[in-house]
C-alpha cells in the first residue's frame, strides 16, 4: 500500500559560540558546573531585574537566517510566552512570535540538501533556554521529587522551524546533517556538546492528523523516533483507527513515543511583546555587516574545493558534510599541497576507520570524528608525500595508516622501520631476485620463452619479501635480469 508521509522539524540550537546568556552576562557554558552556580539575579528571574539583550546572539541568529535563505524583517521584537513550569524562573519564556506582524529574525527561507532536494524554512527565531529538571531516579514517572538546576536558564537558542516538507527519515537525516554542517561552519554552535542541538518533529501519514514528538534529545535519535512514530501511525491507519492530533514524548530509554501527560495544545500562552526590550532595528547596514562577517558556508566551500583543488563533486560533498573533516583536509593541505591524493586518503581510507569506530560505540554520542584515532593532518600529509614520491606503494601506505592510526607514529618513521622503502631495499630486492632465479631455474627458462611466467617469479619474490617489495620495481628487475642472462 502506497503511503505518503509528511514530516516537519523544529530544531533548537544553542548559540554556544555567543559565550554569554541571551539576557545577562552569565556564561553560556553551563556544562559540568555545580547546580545553580551559573546564575545571576537576571537569569534567576529575581524581582526587579530586566533583560539585557546580548548583541552577539542577534548577529549569530542573523547569520543562520542568511544561511537558510530567510528574509529579515525591518525590526525584531521579543515576546513573552506565558506558562507555568518549574524550569522557567520567570514563568514565562522570552521568545519571538509572528502572529501580530513578522518580528522574528528570519522567515520564508529554503534550504537545499541531499541531491537537489529542498525544504522550506518557516521561521528562525531567538529565544531563551529554560533550566533543567533533574529527576531523582532519572525518570519523571518513578521519581518522588525533582531538583531544579537553573544553570542553563537563559542560554541563547535559535529555533529553526521547517514546513512539513520531508517524505522520509532519510531526508530528515540528510537535512539535519546539512544544518549541523552550517551551524558548525558559522561557528555559532558546537554541535558536539551534549544537548546543544535538539529537534522536535511533527509527522502525519496519508493526510491524517499531525502528531508532534517532543523530548528528542539528539539529532541521532530523531530518525529512531520518527521511524517508530511512522510505523505506529501506519499500523493504526491500516487497522482503520484514526490517529489523534496530539503531542507525544520520545522515551529515550524504551525508544518509543508515548502520550504526554499534559495537554499542551490546550495551553494559551498569552503572548505579548516584552516591554523591557525595545524593538531592534536591523536595517541594510546591519545586513551587509552580517554578510561581510559571515564565515564560509558549506556550499561555497564545496565549490571552492572543486574549482581550486579539482576535487570531484562527490569527494567535495563528503568533506564539507562535516566541518571537522573539511577543516582536517585544509589543515593537511597547509602542510603538503596534494589535494586530490589527500582528499582520497581522507574520504576513502580515513573515513572507513572512523565509520568502524563509530559502529563500535554503543550510543551514538556526538563527539569528535577523530576521537580515539591518533591521526592528525601531519600524518596524512606525510603519508601522501611518501606515496607521491614513490617512496612506498599504495598497499603499504594503507598498511601504515592502519597502524599509525592506533600508535600516532609518523608514517615515514614507520616506513623506515618496516624497511619498505624502495631506496633502502634496492640491494635487498636484487638479492632476493637473484635467489629466486637460482631456486626456480626451470621457471626462469620458461619465462625466457613465455613472458607471462615472469609473474610467477614475481609472486615468489613477493612471498619471500612478505609483500614489502614494490611489485612494479621487482617485475622490472626480473624482466631486466631475464634479458641479461
Amino acid at each position, binding site marked *: 500500500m502506497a503511503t505518503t508521509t509528511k514530516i516537519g522539524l523544529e530544531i533548537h540550537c544553542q548559540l554556544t559560540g555567543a559565550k554569554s546568556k541571551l539576557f545577562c552576562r552569565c556564561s553560556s557554558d553551563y556544562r559540568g558546573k555545580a547546580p545553580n552556580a551559573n546564575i545571576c*539575579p537576571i537569569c*534567576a*528571574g*529575581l*524581582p*526587579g*531585574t*530586566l*533583560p*539585557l*539583550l546580548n548583541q552577539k546572539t542577534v548577529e549569530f541568529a542573523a547569520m543562520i537566517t542568511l544561511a537558510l535563505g530567510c528574509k529579515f524583517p525591518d525590526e525584531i521584537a521579543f515576546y*513573552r510566552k*506565558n506558562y*507555568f513550569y*518549574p524550569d522557567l*524562573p*520567570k*514563568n*514565562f519564556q522570552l521568545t519571538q512570535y509572528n502572529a*501580530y506582524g513578522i518580528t522574528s529574525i528570519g522567515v520564508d527561507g529554503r534550504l537545499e540538501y541531499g541531491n537537489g532536494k529542498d525544504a522550506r524554512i518557516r521561521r528562525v527565531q531567538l529565544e531563551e533556554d529554560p533550566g533543567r529538571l533533574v529527576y531523582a531516579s532519572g525518570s519523571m514517572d518513578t521519581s518522588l521529587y*525533582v531538583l*531544579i538546576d537553573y544553570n542553563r536558564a537563559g542560554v541563547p537558542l535559535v529555533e529553526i522551524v521547517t514546513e512539513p516538507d520531508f517524505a522520509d527519515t532519510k531526508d530528515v537525516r540528510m537535512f539535519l546533517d546539512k544544518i549541523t554542517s552550517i551551524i558548525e561552519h558559522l561557528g555559532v554552535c558546537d554541535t558536539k556538546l551534549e544537548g546543544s542541538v535538539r529537534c522536535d518533529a511533527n509527522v502525519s501519514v496519508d493526510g491524517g492528523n499531525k502528531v508532534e514528538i517532543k523530548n528528542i534529545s539528539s539529532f541521532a535519535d530523531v530518525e529512531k523516533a520518527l521511524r517508530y512514530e511512522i510505523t505506529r501511525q501506519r499500523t493504526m491507519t491500516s487497522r482503520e483507527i484514526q490517529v489523534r492530533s496530539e503531542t507525544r514524548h520520545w522515551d529515550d530509554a524504551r525508544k518509543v513515543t508515548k502520550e504526554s501527560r499534559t495537554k499542551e495544545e490546550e495551553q*494559551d*500562552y*498569552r*503572548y*505579548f511583546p516584552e*516591554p*523591557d*526590550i*525595545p524593538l531592534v532595528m536591523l536595517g541594510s547596514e546591519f545586513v551587509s555587516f552580517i554578510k561581510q562577517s559571515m564565515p564560509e558556508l558549506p556550499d561555497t566551500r564545496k565549490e571552492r574545493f572543486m574549482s581550486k583543488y579539482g576535487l570531484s563533486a562527490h569527494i567535495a560533498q563528503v568533506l564539507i558534510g562535516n566541518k571537522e573533516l573539511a577543516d582536517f583536509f585544509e589543515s593537511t593541505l597547509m602542510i603538503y599541497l596534494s589535494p586530490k591524493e589527500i582528499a582520497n586518503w581522507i574520504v576513502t581510507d580515513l573515513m572507513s576507520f572512523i565509520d568502524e569506530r563509530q559502529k563500535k560505540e554503543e550510543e551514538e554520542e556526538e563527539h569528535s570524528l577523530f576521537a580515539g584515532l591518533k591521526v592528525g593532518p601531519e600524518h596524512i600529509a606525510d603519508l601522501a608525500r611518501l606515496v607521491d614520491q614513490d617512496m612506498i606503494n599504495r598497499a603499504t601506505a594503507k598498511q601504515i595508516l592502519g597502524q599509525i592510526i592506533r600508535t600516532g607514529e609518523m608514517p615515514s618513521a614507520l616506513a623506515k622501520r618496516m624497511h619498505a622503502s624502495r631506496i633502502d631495499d634496492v640491494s635487498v630486492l636484487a638479492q632476493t631476485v637473484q635467489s629466486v632465479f637460482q631456486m626456480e631455474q626451470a621457471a626462469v627458462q620458461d619465462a625466457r620463452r613465455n613472458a607471462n611466467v615472469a609473474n610467477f617469479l614475481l609472486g615468489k619474490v613477493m612471498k619471500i619479501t612478505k609483500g614489502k617489495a614494490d611489485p612494479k620495481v621487482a617485475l622490472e628487475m626480473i624482466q631486466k635480469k631475464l634479458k641479461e642472462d
Partner: protein
Amino acid sequence: MPIYTLEAGQVVQGIKSKEFSAEEYISQLFERIEKVEPKVNAFVTLNKEEGLDRARRLDKKIRDGEQSGPLAGVALSIKDNICTKGMKTTCSSKMLESYIPAYDATVIKRLMAAGAIIIGKANLDEFAMGSTTEFSRHGPTRNPWDISRVSGGSSGGSAASVAALECAASLGSDTGGSVRCPASFCSVVGLKPTYGLVSRFGLVSYANSLEQIGPVGRTVSDVVSILNVIAGFDENDHTTTNSSKPTYSLQERKGLRVGLIKEFTEGADPGVSKMIYKAAETLEKQGCKCEEVSLPSVQYALASYYTIATAEASSNLARYDNIRYGFDMNPEGYEWNSYFARARSNFGDEAKRRIIVGSYVLSSGYYGKYYLKAHQVRSLLKREMETLFKKYDVLIGPTMPILPFKIGERIDDPLKMYLVDIDTVVANLTGMPAISVPAGFADGLPVGLQIMADQFAEQTMLDVAYLFEQAAKVQRSPEL
C-alpha cells in the same frame, strides 16, 4: 525648630557646615518616627542600626574633610518595591514577606553614592496595585492630615513619611499615578519623570511600559536635587535613554504658556476644581498665560491604562510561585501545579483581580480586541498631547479629582477606586513627565496641582512648579 523638620537642602548644608552631625539628625528622626509611626504607619521596615552607622561614617568623612556628596546625610524612605541589598523588600505582599534582595537597584546605588541615608522601607499597596495603600499586608498608611483618611497610593508610605516629618524625602514608583496621588493627598511634592529618564533596574515590575521611579519631597527644590542624582542612562535598563546626564535647576521664568485641561476640572469635586482655578489665577499673576484646553481622548485613558497595566502585571507576577524565594510553605505532598496554585492563593484580592483581568485581556482571540486597542488609544492620546504641547509649555489640572477619603470607603468597589486615577494615567500612557505640587486645602484636606510637560521637558515643568510653589506658599506638614 527641631532638625527633623528640615528640608533636604537644609540638612546637607547643616551637616556639611557641622552645624549638627548626621548622627544627631538621624537619631532625632528615629525618635520622631517612634512617636508618629503608630498613627501614620508609613514604614514596613526600619533601618535604624545601619542608618545610624552610615550617619557616623559620614560624620567622620566630613571631619576628615573628604567629599560627602550632594545628598550628604539626607534621610530617605524607599518604597518597598525598590530592591535594597540585604534589606527586606516585601512589596507589602505575603509572596515576598521574607525576601531579601541580592542586589541594589540602580537608583539606590546612585543615592548612596551621593551620601543619602536610607532609614527604612515605605508601605505601599501590594505590588504597587492601588490608589490608597489600603491593599497592604502591613495595614493601611494613614493620611497625616487626618488619620481616618487614606494617604493615597500606591506610594502612600513614601508621601506620608515625608509629610509626617519622618524623613526628608522619599522614592516612590508611579505606574498610573502612584507617586503623584499620595503626594497630592498628603500635601507634598511628587514627580513622575519621563519614561526612560530614570532606571527601573531593581524596581519590582508591576507594569513595565508605564512605570517610573520618582522622588517625593516637601519642596520642589528637594525633588530636583534627588532627581539630579537618580536620572540618566543605565546600562542595566535598555529603556533608559542614552543621552548625557541631565541636570535640572530652579529658575524663575516668566511668560510661560499654560493649558488647563477642562476634562480634568469638569470631572473633579467642586472643592478640588475651585482650588485648581485658583492655582491658574496664581500662575497668571506670576506672568503665565493660562487657557482652557480640551483633551478629548482622555475618556478612553482609564480603559487603556487598566488593560495594559493588568496585562503586563499578570505576566510579571507569574514568577511568584514560592519556589526560589517567598514564604515558608512545605512543598511535600504537592504535585507542582497544585503547589503553585496553593502558594499563589496568598496574593491579596487586588493583585488577584489584576492578574485575572490581565490574563483575560491577553488570552487568545482577545489580544486584538483589548491589548492592541489599548495601545491604539495610547498612541492617540500621545498625538493629542503632542499637539497641545506645540501651543503650551505645560498642561495643568488637578492631580486627584477628589479629596482624600475615609479608609475603607471605596475598598469594596474596585471600579469606583479605579476612577480616581483618571487624571494621572495620561502621563504614564504617554510617557510624559508630571508633577504634583500642593495647591491648598479644601474642607481642610490637601489638593494637589498637577503639571504635565512634553517628553524630557522636565525643566519647563519644574520651572512652573517652582514658580507656583513660591507664589502659593502652601503648608507642607501637619501637626501630629
